[in-house]
């Protein structure tokens, strides 16, 4: 039975009278002049009980980390602690208005100052701005800072390099920041091709954007050489922090030679992703670039945390207000609960889980790069009797969320890897959960007839059969 839309539940006159007896008896008179009253919008009128039942049902037809693993490579989610949701609901934060005087938002600045410091320590950077709304906006801010930096010294560097395995947001942000993009190919080991990189490092190049470990799950082991080459060219090295959850407390972007970094708080600091957002993408930089950070940057003066009002070289405002306070509070809660030991353990577990899964799935789905992986691993579908797409849909028949396929996730596989799958278990899947996933992969792999007839799905309880073209 398809779930009717809320608009179909409309019953004229049905919505309860939420204004009770307090509403003005007469309708507001029409304003003078050109303004015309709205006669009809087309919002549904339904009872509160209808709304609750409708959206409760829709929620039950959805899958979240609370329901089971969500192993989309690179776009994955680990467990989102419930306590941190409560932090965001505290009225002292939830009911503060952004246009209050800054000195009435002391708690916001205090939290910001502490979180900035933690982000700097974890990334090995010197200064931080928490305002960016998401990783992509963190990137954008970073690129604008790079632009401002060179512009300040009158240097024209209109090009940004990105590896072929980069997230789509990297080139897209570069374009928005007014840069031209050039793609650096990977070598046979899945790393940046350093020969080609060297050749591409011309005086036009403002920066090289790199994700490390990469979206292929591989650590750029020649990162020192890369950083040296980039810096020798007078260019800056940008760190896309999407995969930082693999390295916390083990190695820091700043120590690897990166000049700027953004962090995706949903993935690294466990904030929920809500089916697409809201997230937050703090951006952190080495001292030399600190003056370009967008606002607010919070500083502590005479013990009191407060936004720094004197930042003439800042790239300016990137959002209407101060940032995603309700999201950043959750990140703060996560970091304070984990501490240094917990974060390191989390990264170890993330890498352990990915390698374990890579190892156990190898007989069916051998890794494209047969080596240690970090937080995720790219698997080849070459041994499958069917397409990876069919395999993925069959996983759904079993109630298991599939890994990322090309075009169904925010990643991009270089070269001829169209039949690969990217899988990232995250650090909060237990061994039992991983083993259960492996068993189901095995079961599907063993199925005799991997064809369309297996696709019905209804008998295994999923709501939809395969969606056309997906």
């Amino acid at each position: 039975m398809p779930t009717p839309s809320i608009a179909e539940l409309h019953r004229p006159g049905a919505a309860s009278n939420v204004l009770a007896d307090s509403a003005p008896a007469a309708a507001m008179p029409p304003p003078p002049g050109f303004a015309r009253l709205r006669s009809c919008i087309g919002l549904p009128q339904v009872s509160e009980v209808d709304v609750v039942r409708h959206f409760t049902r829709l929620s039950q037809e959805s899958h979240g980390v609370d329901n089971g693993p969500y192993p989309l490579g690179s776009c994955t989610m680990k467990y989102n602690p419930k306590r941190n949701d409560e932090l965001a609901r505290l009225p002292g934060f939830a009911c503060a208005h952004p246009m209050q005087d800054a000195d009435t938002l002391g708690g916001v600045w205090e939290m910001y100052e502490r979180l900035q410091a933690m982000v700097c320590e974890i990334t090995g950077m010197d200064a931080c701005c928490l305002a960016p709304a998401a990783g992509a906006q963190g990137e954008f801010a970073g690129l604008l800072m790079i632009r401002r930096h060179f512009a300040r010294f009158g240097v024209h560097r209109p090009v940004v390099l990105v590896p072929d395995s980069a997230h789509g947001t990297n080139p897209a942000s570069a374009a928005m920041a007014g840069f031209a993009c050039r793609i650096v190919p990977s070598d046979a080991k899945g790393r940046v091709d350093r020969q080609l990189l060297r050749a591409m490092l011309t005086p036009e190049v403002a920066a090289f954007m790199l994700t490390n470990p990469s979206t292929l799950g591989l650590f750029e082991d020649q990162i020192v050489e890369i950083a040296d080459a980039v810096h020798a060219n007078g260019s800056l090295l940008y760190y896309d922090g999407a995969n930082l959850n693999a390295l916390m407390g083990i190695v820091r972007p700043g120590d690897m030679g990166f000049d700027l970094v953004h962090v995706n708080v949903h993935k690294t600091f466990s904030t929920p992703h809500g089916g697409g957002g809201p997230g937050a993408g703090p951006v952190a930089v080495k001292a030399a670039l600190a003056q370009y950070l967008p606002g607010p940057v919070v500083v502590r003066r005479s013990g009191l945390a407060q936004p720094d009002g004197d930042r003439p070289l800042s790239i300016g405002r990137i959002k209407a207000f101060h940032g995603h306070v309700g999201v950043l509070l959750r990140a703060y809660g996560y970091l304070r609960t984990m501490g240094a030991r917990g974060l390191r353990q989390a990264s170890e577990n993330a890498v352990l889980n990915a390698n374990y899964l890579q190892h156990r799935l190898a007989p069916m789905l051998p890794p494209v790069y047969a080596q240690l992986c970090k937080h995720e691993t790219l698997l080849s579908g070459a041994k499958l009797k069917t397409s990876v797409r069919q395999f993925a849909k069959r996983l759904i028949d079993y109630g298991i969320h599939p890994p990322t396929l090309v075009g169904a996730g925010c990643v991009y596989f270089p070269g001829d890897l169209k039949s690969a799958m990217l899988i990232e278990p995250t650090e909060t899947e237990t061994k039992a959960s991983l083993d259960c996933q492996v068993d189901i992969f095995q079961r599907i792999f063993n199925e005799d007839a991997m064809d369309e007839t297996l696709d019905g799905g209804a008998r295994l309880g999923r709501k939809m059969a395969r969606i056309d073209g997906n």
Partner: protein
Amino acid sequence: MNQKQNDSALEERVPVGYNVHTGAEVQAMLEVMGLDSVEQLFADVPAELRLRRALSLPPALSEWELMRDVRAMADMNATVLSHSSFLGCGAYEHYIPAVVDAIVSRGEFLTAYTPYQPEMSQGLLQALFEFQLLVGRLLGRECVNCSVYDGATALAESCWMMCAASGLRRVVVAQALWPQYREVLDTYLLPRAVELEHVAQDPETGLVDGAAIGGLLAQGNVAGVVLQSPNALGVIEDVAAIAQVCAQNDTLLTVSVNPLLCGWLEAPGQLGADIVACEAQPLGLALSAGGPYAGIIACAKPLERYLPGRLVGRVHDLHGKLGYALVKEDREQHVARDRATSHICSNQALNAIRVAVHLSCLGERNFMRIAQLNAANALQLRARLTALPGVELLRSGVHFNEFALRLPLDAAVFRARMRVRGLFAGVPVDPRIVGHGRGLLVAVTETKSPADLDAYARHARACLQGA
């Protein structure tokens, strides 16, 4: 804290914080792989880069210590509960049905990722589709994306849509945008060599100068026009008139609107705006010191392919059954990369669901009544305050739930005096627009009772007299 991982004592490894593996499990997993230490999993990280110490972070807290810690910070904030607030300027104190929080705290929605596998996420996709549907009706333009970061970036992305659609790089912008929106336009558009041409507001009515816009458009080369309504002076713009000017010049028009206004007056989309951008905060989002909110863009069908971000559409499964999926992804960064309409990846999906639930809870009738109540309350306070000696309207235009006063003293001084009396009196008007610091923007929503309005008027009288 001794940070050293003693792999030889794996069995003593206690899971810390939210970690899941016991030492024995780590051991078992390593054994399966033929490894004997976690250390070996990081063999590809050059030794000289490795952090040889523990991260220097504050000590880990238990759940109850964390609550205490964060409650203490929360207590350092004033709020619209501790003060009687008349602040607006892009964020408004509104009633949010409890149902909204109850629904979006359900784990299936809250802990979902972007629905890349539609069969796993039909309910989430349908909820987002219903958001698009209801918001499209509200704003008067049918094509709605699944949200962008906030109202300011929605406006910036809309400007770029007009540039992309027209192939031009010059945008005419009404002067009376929220200052913060104007700054975000600069940040987003100047690096792409978009020229922003500002048009003044009428010093009497506060309306943008339609003739001046007409003049600029006649010069040609303009990608589009941008208005805000109600504008930063609290004045409702004559969207139909400007739309006509644009249409005559074959130029696109974007209007940034307070979505609640569309429950009282005709929507910008109905009045001819090609793109309606808005901040979703008044539609069920907590104030939360400024975020997370959500930006909405609604546009006419021909502009759909320039929309940033995700779109949910109706699709069919192999048996012809109706379903939902992300559609038209060729616009997006993960497919189009540097040719994408925008870099946006994470959006504000959960807040979009909040909006869908909020609008469903209120329904047509209550939504319109609440919009009227906002207008009525503001009108009432406006009358009370302009009756005070020395106080007059800053601009004469039509107001919704926010109006600007011209005070006989500096607005910041007045605001500070009112705060001592437990009121957040309003937001000073940007002097860049009016040339002085005596403008105060006062917002009044349905949450204010007659007694609250009385109190404002009473305290204002005293504060004008210097107390």
